[in-house]
């Protein structure tokens, strides 16, 4: 494929010859642009479970149904207010009412879109070298493990402002999470200063978009109170003129207007309780510089013990508020619109971009190569053996897959037959709770709980292998590939090596 050949900058031509072998295959990740574009943008090879729009400018979670509901609720309620209540109020009271309402509405929508579309502070996954370096350091600390021994969960302790904080190792992203970072199981990313995953906003709320989220709920509280108050005012004023309207009482227009009013009142009533409550809660969190995560777990609660305090707090609530809302806005660390460089190592969980030829066809080849190189360390320790020669997993080639299954195998053995099931459940549960409007706060926490219950127990192989699976396509059948490994001790070494690196 000449279109891909020119990208072999530093790579020998044989790389692209491999390309020729597997060009006829295509994975689900393939986009129509791949054949025309010369190189991919980073968002196209992003390993998390996010959705990107407008060529990487917009970033959202995978499940966006509830976000559209939020939009519809706000637009419909505001629309009804401006269409039916404002003319009356403007003429009978003051035109400032629609003006203020308009400003509030624009601000609410702006903040909502900003919170939904921006990168919450996703931490990019570790490159293979980083992952191996960390692995090495952990091995040095823990000591060698015997076959079949599951190493203990990896944590590092660090002293921050006098408090001992545990840094956990993320098996999916292959990094030690910075303090206050957490892994969102819905989006499958580690997010800095993770607050919660908000389905109403359709995105995680983290370091980079917390202030937008907070301003959104704050302004929405004002907007709902505003609409609620003035709709009630409208109804009261109108009922004072019952005499005038009684003649028209049964006309369809009146009935329709009544219906709209009732709808607005109902939506606003429930929203007021939930949104205002949520704003109050987040105001408290901001003033004490905690995340929803930390508050729910009671990380800095004095109940945990004497001398337990929040090491991140600046001391007084004004500084905390200013820091959260007016502090410097850090840039996105994932550079979604940048181009994938041919010589840049790609993140560990997604080993498909290292090659010079970005199209997916060669990615399976690269995955096998990297995995094999990693596991070879263990194999070399055992003995040299012909299994060092890794065969790229060529999609669609049945016999070839079978022949060199041992080291090429792990790539496919990690192919999950299901996507990470636990993390998809909250999404479903959330969808089911659409109607309980007044429980939005609980929803956000609900997701948090799920995220919490899932991430410590998250079985590493499905999430880690998911990117592997996606670029391998779904053509690989795990069963036929995992054959003689268990019977050969050398195979065991290599598999153990791979298992160690990519899972527990």
């Amino acid at each position, binding site marked *: 494929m000449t279109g891909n050949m020119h990208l072999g900058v*530093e790579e020998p031509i*044989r790389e692209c010859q491999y390309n020729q072998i597997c060009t006829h295959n295509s994975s689900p990740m393939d986009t129509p642009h791949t054949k025309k574009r010369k190189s991919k943008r980073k968002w196209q090879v992003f390993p998390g479970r996010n959705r990107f729009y407008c060529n990487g400018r917009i970033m959202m979670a995978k499940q966006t149904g509830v976000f559209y509901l939020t939009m519809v609720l706000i637009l419909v309620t505001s629309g009804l207010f401006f269409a039916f209540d404002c003319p009356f109020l403007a003429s009978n009271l003051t035109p400032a009412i629609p003006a203020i309402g308009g400003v509030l509405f*624009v*601000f609410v929508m*702006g*903040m909502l879109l*900003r919170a939904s579309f921006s990168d919450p502070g996703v*931490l*990019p996954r570790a*490159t*293979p*070298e*980083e992952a*191996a*370096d960390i692995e*090495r350091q952990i091995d040095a600390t823990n000591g060698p493990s015997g076959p079949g021994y599951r190493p203990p969960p990896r944590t590092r302790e*660090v*002293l*921050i*402002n006098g408090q001992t904080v545990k*840094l956990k190792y993320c098996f999916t992203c292959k990094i030690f999470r*910075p*303090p*206050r970072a957490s892994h969102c199981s819905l989006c499958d990313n580690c997010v800095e*200063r993770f607050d919660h995953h908000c389905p109403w906003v359709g995105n995680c709320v983290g370091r980079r978009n917390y*202030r*937008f989220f907070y*301003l959104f709920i704050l302004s929405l509280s004002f907007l709902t109170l505003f609409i609620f108050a003035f709709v009630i005012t409208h109804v009261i004023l109108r009922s004072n003129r019952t005499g005038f309207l009684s003649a028209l009482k049964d006309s369809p227009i009146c009935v329709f207007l009544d219906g709209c009013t009732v709808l607005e009142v109902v939506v606003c009533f429930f929203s007021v309780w939930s949104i205002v409550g949520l704003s109050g809660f987040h105001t408290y969190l901001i003033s004490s510089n905690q995340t929803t995560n930390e508050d729910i777990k009671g990380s800095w609660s004095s109940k945990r013990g004497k001398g337990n305090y929040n*090491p*991140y707090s600046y001391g007084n609530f004004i*500084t905390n508020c*200013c820091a959260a*809302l*007016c*502090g*410097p*806005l*850090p*840039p996105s*660390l*994932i550079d979604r619109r940048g181009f994938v460089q*041919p*010589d*840049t*190592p790609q993140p560990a969980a997604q080993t498909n971009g*290292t*090659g*010079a030829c970005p199209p997916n066809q060669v990615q399976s080849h690269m995955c096998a*190569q*990297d995995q*094999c*190189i*990693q596991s*070879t360390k263990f194999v070399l320790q055992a003995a040299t053996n*012909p299994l*060092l*020669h*890794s*065969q*790229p997993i060529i999609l669609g080639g049945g016999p070839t897959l079978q022949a060199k299954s041992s080291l090429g195998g792990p790539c496919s053995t990690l192919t999950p037959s299901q996507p990470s099931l636990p993390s998809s459940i909250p999404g479903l549960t959330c969808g089911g709770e659409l109607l309980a409007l007044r429980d939005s706060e609980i929803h956000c926490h609900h997701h948090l709980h799920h995220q919490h219950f899932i991430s410590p127990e998250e079985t590493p192989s499905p999430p880690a292998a998911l990117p592997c699976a996606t670029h391998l396509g779904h053509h690989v059948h795990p069963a036929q590939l995992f054959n003689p490994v268990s019977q050969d001790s050398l195979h065991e070494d290599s598999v153990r090596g791979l298992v160690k690196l990519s899972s527990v």
Partner: protein
Amino acid sequence: MAETHSLQDLRQAAVASKVFVQRDYTSGTICKFQTKFPAELESRIDKQQFEETMQTLNNLYAEAEKLGGRSYLEGCLACLTAYTIFLCMETHYEKVLKKIAKYIQEQNEKIFAPLGLLLTDPIERGLRVVSFPTSKHHAGRSVPWLDCH
């Protein structure tokens, strides 16, 4: 074909290595890197030089994340304009990041390249590590393990 390819890679791999300097979280979540001199670089670079470079980087990042009058002003102004102001101008953080990139480039040219080292900009690694590839075979065939053992 695949066979010889791999073996050659392994040999090449043994030559290339990377040293990673991790973040220092003792002051909280601010961006700060450890200034402890890694053992792998002992023979390659002067300890003083390394620490000076790391300290300068830490200072620059501290400047980017500093809470002060300027950042508050920028934040308030941005809020009032519904954050549309960032369509026209860069944030303070971004400006400092450019400064850091320039500094790293200078350091590489003046100090590290003659020693056969290369300091990568931490922003490319998610502000997680400062890496020093220590081989001249800096290629896509990045090897996941170090040759130190």
